[in-house]
């Protein structure tokens, strides 16, 4: 089973890369871009058929390694 995870910086945490991308887009005449937040995307292939169990395992992975909860949030999709 494939589970997807998105890790993003928490609101309020400075994202200098997102800011640089936003400024570049503005410079390319994409004037209506107000903010960009950059994140990470994971596709995890698990040897597990039960979706509930798979997601609960991935949640554990997020807490222990994939995200640093000091500055990041994760979303399992």
């Amino acid at each position: 089973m494939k589970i997807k995870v998105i890790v993003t910086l928490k609101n309020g945490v400075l994202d200098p890369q997102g800011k640089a991308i936003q400024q570049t887009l503005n410079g390319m005449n994409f004037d209506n871009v107000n903010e960009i937040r950059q994140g990470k995307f994971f596709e995890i292939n698990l040897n597990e058929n039960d979706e509930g169990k798979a997601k609960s395992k991935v949640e554990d992975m997020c807490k222990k390694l994939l995200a640093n909860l000091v500055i990041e949030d994760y979303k399992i999709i």
Partner: protein
Amino acid sequence: MNSSVIIFPGSNCDRDMDVALKKFGFKNQMVWHDDQNIPKSDIIVLPGGFSYGDYLRCGSIASKSKIIKSVIEFANSGGLILGICNGFQILTETGLLPGILQQNKYLNFICKNVFVKVNDKNNKYFKNIKKDILELHIAHNEGNYFCSNEELKSLEDNNQIAVTYCNKMGLENDENNPNGAIKNIAGIFNKNKNVLGMMPHPERMVDAHLSGEDGSLFFENLLENLK
């Protein structure tokens, strides 16, 4: 005094640290990350570098390596652990130190000499050190220290802020903050002050002819405090 330097794949300041420790009289051993036991040590050093190519987050993969269990046990039993640069990043990822090192505010890799103020001398690392302001070298892309307001208050209340970026007169402001670190933080202790993580490299300042000698002050003093 015995010391151990842990080598991770991608560490690159391990041998500089070995040279520095031996120069000041430590009997140093190098320990591979895949080992489980650390030889009898008075201090363990996690060196600078780019462990695991900084994949995922700096220090995150190294913080799960086999040797780390012994490192955490050593810290919890009161043993001294010094993490420099990537070593500091690894210590935050293990949870031995609070907070995290984020990418530098202006997205640049910074490689230069800086001045740092020693904020607390009530510990084995800086007790009796002869100078309050040290000139040390930094070389990092992720040195922008960040933590929650609660953690920051706790760091301040317990005098855990070890060193802060400043100018040579000791002035701490934005102009003298190379990477955007919160409160100009360059290094912090854990609550018991046996674990120290800092971005500056004292091991790069141990030769008067090549660099400077404030790193020598640090190591000489550390050895004296451990006797």
